[in-house]
């Protein structure tokens, strides 16, 4: 569900109703993979496998060199993706190359959003010039040269690539103004994470800014598959119960059974990252074919989606 004042103007292909729609029917399965892990082509196959496996929304990680909110699993994926040459511009190309029919969300850290389009000397080789050319905005270019960063250029490019929204783990509500504004301008959603420690005024502030869905953090800590589901999940869900956006629970969901319990606890969807990245990592370690790994990812997705469905029964 988008905020009332979102416009979606400015010639974007993004659909600001897409995320809300994805949660409209059965409980949503929202998987995450780091884009470019372990390489561009394999990564395309894995994301498409997620879609085939029943993903309702896919969170695509644009790797940042200092992923302070990630646990070791996703951090490993980010390192692999960076080493394979992933850049913001390649990320957008990846989004455009993807052949999937579900809404896509970009998960990344704020510095990459902030820097995008700021520097006037991109390296042609990796296609960074594309954006400069595409933007064709003399003023924006001047601003960039003058060192004025900001999220607008990134959001514009994301909208153009067909992304539906953002999750930015190091951007709390207090710092989110400029990005929220740019998202509104280009019709994208901005998802916030509600932590087990989030209470009182902080909840109100986020509720005012959030759109698309709210990411309910199931437990403290960083991302990573766990075998237990924290008691705090229910508490957290209770705190956002009357929010108008769908509630997706993430952090630590590793199998269908957990997915089932989380949905049974009242979640509108489940977010799963590390359990899927584990499959990619295992494939890298064993030197498995991308096809084989993609099949495993699809199977895992089916398991999780089925679990989520059972939770609603």
């Amino acid at each position, binding site marked *: 569900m988008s905020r009332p004042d979102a416009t979606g103007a400015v010639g974007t292909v993004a659909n600001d109703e897409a995320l809300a729609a994805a949660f409209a029917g059965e409980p949503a399965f929202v998987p995450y993979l780091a884009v470019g892990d372990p390489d561009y082509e394999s990564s395309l196959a894995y994301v498409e496998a997620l879609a085939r496996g029943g993903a309702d929304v896919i969170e695509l990680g644009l790797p940042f060199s200092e992923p302070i909110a990630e646990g070791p699993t996703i951090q490993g994926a980010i390192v692999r993706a960076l080493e394979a040459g992933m850049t913001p511009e390649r990320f957008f190309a990846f989004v455009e190359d993807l052949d999937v029919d579900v809404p896509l969300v970009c998960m990344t850290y704020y510095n990459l959003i902030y*820097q*995008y389009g700021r520097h006037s000397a991109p390296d042609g080789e990796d296609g960074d010039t594309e954006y400069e050319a595409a933007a064709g905005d003399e003023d924006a270019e001047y601003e960039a040269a003058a060192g004025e960063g900001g999220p607008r250029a990134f959001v514009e490019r994301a909208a153009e690539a067909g992304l539906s929204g953002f999750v930015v783990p190091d951007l709390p509500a207090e*710092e989110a103004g400029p990005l929220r504004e740019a998202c509104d301008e280009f019709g994208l959603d901005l998802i916030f994470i509600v*932590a087990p420690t989030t209470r009182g005024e902080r909840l109100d502030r986020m509720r005012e800014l959030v759109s698309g869905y709210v990411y309910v953090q199931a437990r403290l*800590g*960083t991302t990573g598959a766990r075998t237990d589901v924290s008691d705090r999940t229910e508490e957290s869900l209770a705190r956002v119960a009357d929010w108008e956006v769908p509630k997706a629970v993430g952090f630590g969901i590793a199998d269908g059974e957990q997915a089932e319990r989380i949905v049974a606890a009242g979640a509108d969807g489940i977010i799963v990252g590390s359990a899927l990245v584990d499959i990619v990592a295992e494939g890298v370690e064993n030197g498995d074919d991308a096809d084989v790994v993609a099949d495993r990812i699809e199977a895992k997705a089916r398991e999780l989606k089925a679990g989520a469905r059972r939770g609603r029964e």
Partner: protein
Amino acid sequence: GRFGRYGGQYVPEALMPALEELEDAYGRYVLENEDGFLEEFHRRLDDFGGRPTPLQRADRLSERYDTEVYLKREDLLHGGAHKLNNALGQVLLAKYMGKDRIIAETGAGQHGTATAMAAAHLGMPCTIYMGERDINRQRPNVFRMKINGAEVQPVTTGRGTLKEAISETMRDWAATVEDTHYVIGSVVGPHPFPSMVREFQAVISREARAQVQEKTGRLPDAVLACAGGGSNTMGSFEAFIGDDDVDLYAVEAGGSSLSVDEEAGVAPNSATLSTGGEGVLHGARTKLLQDHHGQIMESHSVSAGLDYAGVGPELAALADEGRVTAANVDDDAALEAFHRLSTDEGIIPALETAHAFGYLKQRQDELGDLVVVTVSGRGDKDLETVIEETEKREIGNAPDMSLFSGGLR
């Protein structure tokens, strides 16, 4: 939490309540001295830490440079560097807040050892995150932490240096934030850390300002301090900020070159104020060493303690305003200055500190008649590096190292 365009709180939501709690505690205990916090802090800084540290006239440098040179001797603080001012302040604050565990990151190990010492002194369990590569480069400091009862957690991600250790400590904090305090080691990170760390370190310049007036009857023309993250710098400058006639020089590590290698993601320097761009790292908007995508570069300096890709947001703002002059000195000049202070004054400085003295030498004619330089720490920790790096170069004033061809062992 804002210093001009810099500062802020760019951290995971889970940490925000802890930052709010910390901001509240900082306001009450540190700024308003609730429960006599400041008395206890200063009593412990004096008795345990060894404050006040002296302001010493450097007789031979004064003669050499034809300028009155005074040294603020933070190398004499317990632990061997200014780091304890902050570590003791934060661990004590954590105690007042009812926290029961301390975590910290460390690069060269100076902040880690200071935190471990402060935690042992105050009876707080303590875990220090340190990159595996840094552990191998700084084993004596690792051992000092362990000897003080701290748990040392090796960080194996990335290159295994400070940057990764900070990220890892933030991860721990994200999981344990309710009963754990994260002692950030410099004037970096999300608000209120940059202000709070500066406030704890401001004791350096508050003492120095009074001491220099007592000894010379006047304020200095210039204050020089080396700058990595900036805690020594801000601590050395704070009391002089309002004295418009006192020039403030933040001397960063020029490393081997001010150029960058974007392809390799490496900036062979840590001259963030001089060459960095605005961005967001480790919780704050500030100046950074980054590639054009916004990925953080690996910085470099012969001095591990300056080897950081960011800088304190307040220092970045002061440099933008022109109140602070950003300067830098390369590895060679820092080593030369290290040997100069050692042989001429009988003070073996930290390699970090040596950068400030390298600048003093380069600009001796322009800094005025009375200069205060902060000796941010002692150089015992750097002996191994100095032997190796001196052997590689032609340093005219270095002693003969032949006794040490096999290193320190």
